[in-house]
């Protein structure tokens, strides 16, 4: 508290009594936020991400509820959401939207830019590709069940070699989102400090059943493929707790 003119200011610790000017304080808070997010500076945003793509991706996340003020509510074992002030680990989820450079009828190449810059201690514990498989209106000729096979290949950035990551049979009854696990591939990418993940997606049987995997199309922003990466600080990977 400010001392009266006749009084000597109280001898207190550095955090007591003195309030920094608001503008300086604001700058300090900004630096604090950036440092906690492990960012050197605020990201430079020059264009907006299509809202439809963003909304769809966010709806697909299964994270704890986030309050208006940013505090996290973590579902407890009894199913009730409780405030989570004791969340010890810093966890991250990264949603990356696909870009495409090569599209043929049977296979497509998707590229994701998932930079680990600034967050170089992240350990990936889950990564999934989300792909929307759409049934065309005239695809009802071959019974109600349509079994297709989706293969996801990983492509080396520096050469043309590729290997199979996922081979999944999908039983389709209607148009829907499907996930394809890519944890090992994304973990390796982060460990190598690379930024670009090149995938080749192939759908066997899609043409027969009039099933269309939706890739990057202007009119289909809400069905644009995306990658969800869940990670935590790598230092905590082998943590031993004693309480």
């Amino acid at each position, binding site marked *: 508290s400010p001392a009266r003119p006749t009084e000597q200011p109280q001898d207190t610790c550095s*955090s*007591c*009594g003195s309030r920094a000017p608001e503008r300086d304080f604001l700058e300090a808070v900004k630096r604090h936020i950036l440092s906690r997010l492990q960012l050197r500076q605020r*990201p430079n*945003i020059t264009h907006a*991400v299509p809202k439809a793509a963003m909304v769809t991706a966010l709806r697909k996340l299964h994270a704890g509820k986030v309050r208006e*003020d940013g505090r*996290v509510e973590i579902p407890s074992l009894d199913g009730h959401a409780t405030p989570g002030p004791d969340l010890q680990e810093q966890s991250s989820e990264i949603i990356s939207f696909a870009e495409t450079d090569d599209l043929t009828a049977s296979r497509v190449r998707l590229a994701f830019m998932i930079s680990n810059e600034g967050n170089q201690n992240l350990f990936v514990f889950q990564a999934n590709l989300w792909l929307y498989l759409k049934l065309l209106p005239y695809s009802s000729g071959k019974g109600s069940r349509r079994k297709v096979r989706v293969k996801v290949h990983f492509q080396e950035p520096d050469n043309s070699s590729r290997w199979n990551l996922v081979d999944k049979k999908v039983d389709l009854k209607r148009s829907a989102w499907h996930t394809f696990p890519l944890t090992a591939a994304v973990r390796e990418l982060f460990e190598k400090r690379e930024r670009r993940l090149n995938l080749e997606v192939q759908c066997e049987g899609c043409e027969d059943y009039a099933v269309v995997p939706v890739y990057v199309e202007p009119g289909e922003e809400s069905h644009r493929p995306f990658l969800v990466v869940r990670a935590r600080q790598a230092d905590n990977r082998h943590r031993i707790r004693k309480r």
Partner: protein
Amino acid sequence: GLECDGRTSLCCRQQFYIDFRLIGWNDWIIAPSGYYGNYCEGSCPAYLAGVPGSASSFHTAVVNQYRMRGLNPGAVNSCCIPTKLSTMSMLYFDDEYNIVKRDVPNMIVEECGCA
């Protein structure tokens, strides 16, 4: 923990809300819309320092250990510090236009006390 209300000079929690729109950060931070950059301020008289329950923290325990050994760090002064912090979850765009959701522990000061 006390809330600062302008009437007390004792250690209390001062609320400080920053609206991301006002600082032009709403273009890259999707949620939340602002940050409670709360902080602790106020005096810590000797009778408040290290009182169990009012501010039992790691710092209090250390200072009490010193006192028990006849040492007296910092004379009678104690510090007004955060004694309860909470996690904040942020959703934002990075430089690659990916959406990042990050749970950052110890981001919001919930309570202050003397240690």
